[in-house]
């Protein structure tokens, strides 16, 4: 009895932590067998570059969700960041990077302060943030009519250059991931994020600075959404105003598929990256198959998300106390 329970519990944890990685492996093998063009350096770097924008935002979202919150504003901030980067590029490379980071970071900071100080639900606060950021983006672009072009070549190169065949966005993602992983796993701040998400009252009693940690978490999420938007603008050479709206839901899906629980307190960055890549590979495979629209990818993603949460739910369901 106890043995099977422990086994089941272990299986649940293992599945949650590494399920996305395993499925990713299976898909890669299946893709390789099915399409000659799949396992080529060009295609793989293609997938990695395409997934990196989502992955960067998902890293920030992972912090937020582990802390027991949610950030719906990241899709709007991604677009806003792109517009600001393109706009800023007329004043040079530095402005093109600093402007989106400053504004999107400020958005995250204000949301974090409101959530931490008033106790309002993150869902609502960041929903308002989503609308406000989208409104700001529209008013900057003449209601979406103006598309700023990236004027600065150095900045454009950050998005488009690909030393050794690998795009700069991939390097940025890896760097962000490395720093984030160290902070999440190896610093007191990271421990505090887990503790708050696991049991906020207990965390407060254990001496965790709850408000400060929450504020930082939303600040980081805003910053990373802005960074991702800026990179995307560099890649496209313009601040596109329509792409990326609704992206927050894809990001949340990637994080949940990666094994981070929406209830907070558990999860990790490896899973999130696997989740983001998984969505990228599914898209790539469907493109490779040809004849199937990208809509099919959504069906698969949605079904996959549902399957993941169902399996996890059944594996983690404890016997009644």
């Amino acid at each position, binding site marked *: 009895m106890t043995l099977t329970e422990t086994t089941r519990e272990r299986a649940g944890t293992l599945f949650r932590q590494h399920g996305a990685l395993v499925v990713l492996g299976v898909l890669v093998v299946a893709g390789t067998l099915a399409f000659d063009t799949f396992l080529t350096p060009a295609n793989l770097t293609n997938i990695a570059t395409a997934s990196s924008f989502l992955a960067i935002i998902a890293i920030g979202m992972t912090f937020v969700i582990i802390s027991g919150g*949610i950030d719906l504003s990241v899709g709007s901030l991604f677009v806003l960041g792109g517009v600001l980067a393109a706009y800023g590029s007329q004043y040079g490379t530095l402005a093109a990077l600093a402007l989106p980071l400053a504004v999107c970071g400020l958005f995250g900071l204000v949301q974090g302060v*409101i959530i931490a100080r*008033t*106790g*309002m*639900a993150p*869902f*609502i*606060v960041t*929903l*308002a*943030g*989503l*609308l*406000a950021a*989208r*409104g*700001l*983006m*529209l*008013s900057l672009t003449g*209601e979406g009519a103006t598309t700023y072009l990236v004027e600065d070549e150095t900045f454009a190169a950050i998005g488009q250059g690909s030393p050794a065949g690998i795009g700069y966005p991939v390097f940025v993602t890896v760097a962000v991931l490395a720093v984030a992983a160290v902070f999440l796993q190896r610093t007191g701040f990271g421990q505090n994020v887990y503790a708050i998400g696991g049991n906020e009252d207990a965390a407060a009693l254990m001496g965790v600075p709850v408000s400060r940690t929450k504020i930082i978490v939303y600040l980081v999420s805003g910053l990373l959404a802005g960074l991702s938007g800026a990179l995307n603008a560099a890649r496209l050479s313009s601040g596109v105003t329509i792409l990326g*709206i*609704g992206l927050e*839901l*894809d990001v*949340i*899906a990637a994080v*949940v598929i990666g094994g981070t629980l*929406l*209830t907070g307190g558990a999860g990790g960055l490896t899973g999130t990256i696997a989740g983001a890549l998984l969505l990228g590979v599914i898209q790539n495979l469907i493109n490779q198959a040809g004849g199937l*629209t990208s*809509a*099919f*990818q*959504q*069906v*698969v*993603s*949605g*079904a996959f*998300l*549902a399957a993941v*949460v*169902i399996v996890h*739910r*059944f594996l983690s*369901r404890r016997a009644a106390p």
Partner: protein
Amino acid sequence: MAEPARGRIAWFQEYGVYAAVGVLLLFNAAFTPHFLALDNFRTQLVQVAPIVIVALGMALVIGTEGIDLSVGSVMALSASVIALYLGYGAAPAILMAVLAGALVGAANGALVAFVGVQPIVATLALLVGVRGLANVLLPQLKEFVNPTLVAIGSDSVAGIPIVVLAAVALTAAVAFVVRRTTFGRQLVAVGGNRAASRLSGLPVRRILLTVYVISGALAAVAGVLATSRLQASDPTSLGLFMELSAITAVVVGGTPLSGGRVRVLGTVMGAVLMQLLQATLIKHNLPQSWTQMAQAVIILAAVYAARERR
């Protein structure tokens, strides 16, 4: 000293949305030319009708302490299904569309009530998947000339557009369900205290399942109405962000996200307030972007005010 302040907050929670709608109407009557024209009213109401219908279902779901993110995708699915079945006539097509919406709701409800998945994750999965399904079934926009559907979208009865009549009828129906039926009473009890409801012998799971089915069906109806107004099925963009508009209407209308309470008229007023706000800003040549920022402020204010009572 504290008492009058609390009283004021309570008053604001209860009637704030009506007061805000009243203030906007007065402002427009005084400062906006041609605002009181019948045509303008008609346009505003036609535009707000689908949001109202979706928000009604959302209010029920939120009353049980849940949330339904899939409503926009359900609208798109209903548009696709209509296009597929229009060959059999308008009535079968509409019926199939609503049935499809109810099925999506059943899937949401089963995940929430029987598997125990959080409502936000369960309905997120269906948001993503169902939008894709709608596009797979109907890859691009498809226009139609079915006279019945076109009539539903553009005709009026006694000067009132059919779309608006449908919204009024559904509001009345949902209000009836909430106020007068056993199910309506049980629904808010489940949202207010699930443990107590279970101990009182309420069929908690069945109630949750039903609520999501209703929300799915209502979203599908909204999809039918929006499609017939467009005279085209547009699974790619129909209902995009509808979940946000609906949640906003419900929250601004005074239904707490923590469940246990459903305000049907408040929800309608919440949707109307957002619509009026947008119309006012447009009539005064203020850009669309201002509307969204103003909406953000209103959402925060409404929830901040409601926060006191728990």
